[in-house]
């Protein structure tokens, strides 16, 4: 039991860390901007989900696959699939954003709250 928990933490660490290394190499070797990295990985997650590879990856790595932004894309692919099964053509429109809704709303609400609560810190580079 404890061993299983430790193993799942290690798998999450290794897979999540490896995805971050891939993103870091893209930044350092191809001069992709961070915004492009985020967009690329979300779209890659949708592609992985569409190919049916995302679910097995989450089954193996847990949060190591769902916490990096490919998880956002993977959740969108699954949401779209379910929406199209239930609603047909309408699901093409309702699926993507509803699958991403909790994370997006959380980021927007906490971001707004932070903007009201905190003052911007001077950036050091």
């Amino acid at each position, binding site marked *: 039991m404890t061993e299983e928990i430790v193993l799942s933490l290690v798998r999450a660490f290794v897979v999540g860390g490896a995805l971050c290394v891939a993103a870091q190499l893209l930044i350092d070797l191809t001069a992709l901007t961070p915004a492009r*990295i985020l967009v690329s990985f979300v779209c890659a997650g*949708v592609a992985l989900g569409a190919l049916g590879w995302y679910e097995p990856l989450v089954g193996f790595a847990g949060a190591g696959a769902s916490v990096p932004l490919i998880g956002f*894309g993977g959740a969108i692919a699954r949401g779209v699939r379910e*929406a199209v099964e239930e609603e047909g053509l309408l699901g093409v429109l309702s699926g*993507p954003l509803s699958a991403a809704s909790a994370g997006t709303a959380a980021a927007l609400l*906490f971001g707004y709250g932070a903007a009201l609560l905190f003052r911007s810190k001077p950036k050091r580079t």
Partner: protein
Amino acid sequence: MDRHFSPPDYRERVRRRAAATPVVKNAARAFLVGGAICAVGQGLYIPLARLTDPRQASVWVTVILIFAAAALTGLGLFDRLARHAGAGTLLPVTGFANSVVSPALDSRSEGLVLGVGAKIFSIAGPVILYATLAGSLYGLALWVASLFA
């Protein structure tokens, strides 16, 4: 002195002049910090999955990490970590949260509607747009396929 460089020549000069990127060090830091964030996520997931179903637990993990990243961004601590961690903080959902919170904070002085309201989407907007685009294309393909099934 000849000041006209061809573009490839110019790129070569810029490359030689620029400080060498510590690729291996950056990758190691991204691995350690990104891996740690994902392990924390997994550590949150395990007890949450006992309280609710796996899918909701996974969404709660995302929400908790987004909250933590928003609070750390507000306190000015996220940037300090991100400067060393690079993609290690960028790629996990913490990076998405930071990309929403940081411009919201910085644009506070420009007003709540066209400042915070507009700038909050400056990086999240492209992410949401292309995610929607990719998701809808996939959905359309599924729907077309279902017509012939």
